[in-house]
């Protein structure tokens, strides 16, 4: 199957700041692909290039089989965009917004109206359809924004940090909407700063840093490369930390100990198995634990593994580069 998104060696600079530094990306049809990286890594710039909003300085970019530079209009009739900030007319009502976008997709007045009603119903906004968007809550606004990006049932849907700034409930809503879309065969490219989100939604993940892709793979592959899941154990008594670490049958070379918080953390391969083992080992040694949790590695840990720099340091790099402009 041909790639729905095909990006080769794309570069874009703003003055001195290199936003994209030879980025390559291929996304297969019907898959959900995540671009994972810290602020300033080039995720949004990539989305803007792919959605015809921004011209790269060089490189080749095709979306849905069309070149974004020379066939922008063909691309535009096949994509939906949920940007980082709400792309809605705040003064108008929700229904007015969707109708307007429908007309601009040349559905004609009647179909635009029908489509607006349909989408309002689907996203639970029928009752608030006439309210001005500026009076919407953050979650409602995001749902309307998502509805607006689905007017034409796009072949490729771009979601730029779709859940940033949302409360947990709205986040779950957006996630379930994305899940249901994928069932319909839409290819999705999403950007995120959260490994958990990429893990939840994406089949494939590309880790982006300083304008290039530094690692590719499924969530499991990446986790394997970056040390996989981790177990965090908090003890009642900090003086028992060393004894506990010695007891626990884990890959001891990558255990971090934080005495102030009475906590140690270690990578695990088998989530459930490790949990049971740790609980049993501590119990039999009579060491009391306050909290034991298995979790995904954070983006910071992934970054540390892949780049040797923490995510924070990488963001600082990006901020410095921005200031230099």
């Amino acid at each position: 199957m041909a790639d729905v998104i095909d990006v080769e060696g794309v570069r874009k600079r703003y003055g001195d700041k290199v936003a994209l530094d030879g980025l390559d990306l291929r996304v297969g049809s019907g898959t959900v692909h995540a671009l994972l990286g810290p602020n300033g890594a080039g995720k949004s710039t990539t989305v803007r290039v792919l959605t015809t909003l921004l011209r790269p300085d060089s490189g080749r970019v095709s979306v849905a089989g069309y070149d974004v530079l020379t066939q922008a209009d063909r691309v535009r009739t096949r994509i939906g965009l949920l940007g980082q900030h709400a792309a809605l007319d705040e003064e108008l009502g929700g229904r007015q917004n969707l109708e307007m976008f429908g007309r601009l997709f040349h559905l004609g007045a009647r179909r635009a109206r029908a489509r607006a009603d349909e989408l309002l119903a689907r996203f639970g906004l029928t009752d608030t359809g006439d309210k001005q968007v500026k009076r919407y809550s953050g979650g409602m606004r995001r749902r309307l924004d998502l509805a607006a990006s689905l007017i034409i049932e796009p072949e490729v849907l771009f979601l730029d940090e779709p859940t940033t700034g949302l409360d947990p409930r709205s986040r779950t809503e957006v996630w379930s909407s994305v899940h249901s879309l994928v069932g319909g065969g839409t290819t999705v490219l999403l950007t995120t700063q959260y490994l958990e989100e990429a893990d939840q939604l994406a089949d494939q993940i590309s880790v982006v840093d300083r304008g290039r892709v530094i690692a590719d793979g499924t969530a499991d592959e990446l986790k394997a490369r970056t040390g996989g899941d981790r177990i965090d154990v908090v003890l009642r008594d900090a003086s028992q930390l060393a004894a506990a670490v010695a007891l626990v049958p884990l890959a001891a070379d990558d255990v971090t100990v934080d005495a102030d918080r009475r906590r140690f953390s270690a990578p695990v391969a088998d989530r459930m198995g490790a949990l049971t083992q740790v609980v049993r080992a501590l119990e039999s040694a009579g060491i009391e634990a306050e909290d034991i949790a298995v979790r995904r590695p954070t983006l910071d840990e992934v970054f540390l593994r892949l780049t040797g720099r923490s995510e924070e340091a990488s963001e600082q790099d990006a901020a410095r580069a921005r200031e230099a402009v």
Partner: protein
Amino acid sequence: MSAVSTTSTRESGGGVAFALSDSWTMTRRELAHWGRQPVQVAVGVVFPVMILLMFGYLIGGGRNVGGDYIDYLVPGILALTMAFGLESTVIAVTQDLNKGVIDRFRSMPMTNGAVLVGRSAADMLQSAVSLAVMIGVGYAIGWRAHTSAGGFLGAVGLLLLFRFAMLWIGIYLALLAGKPELVQAVQILVWPVGFLSNAIASPESMPDWLGTVVQWNPMSQTATAVRDLFGSVGGESGHVLAAVLWPVALFALFFPLALRRFARLSH
């Protein structure tokens, strides 16, 4: 890369029918904004009325314009209102550019520039309404047009033509500046340009050099021609051609500049 830099904009849209329907959709959007913000619209209409009354009764009272001052002033203020429309255009376009919705428009297969055409159509409508109100107020304070229906319509046409040229200058300036902070600079600039004209005072009452500047101001051409067509004080024949050519030339310059600038938002 530079060889393909304008291709995407040329490809946008699918012919005249789409261009028209997209522009109409964008005009409807502006009209829907009016429905949501009636107070703001009313303030926009009332402001020039206040200027008219202020000059008519407070400031300009004793001016020597070679006839009745109100008779001289009303067509002048009509022209001034058209010039000041530039300011509201700049504000509206700048606000739009800094909203996320413009990204959605630009990622959709709509005609390049339909956003701008919609803005200009709505602004023209607003100006027509504003003109009608101003002329009504003019009549209420004793101004009369001493002319035929044709002359009257011709005068209104010249005023709207002038507004149309100002509008596209405004769109271009807004696209050029882009930032709300720069709107203020434009707002301040509009005043000397507006008042360095014969709208309020006759150039004959000014120092020679200033009078010359004022007479060359395209707005003075419009004001003089409009006074001529209305049969008002200060009208001189022979200015109608200039009052047509100036706005047409300004439009011919700034319309393509604005479209090009809009397409270059992707750079």
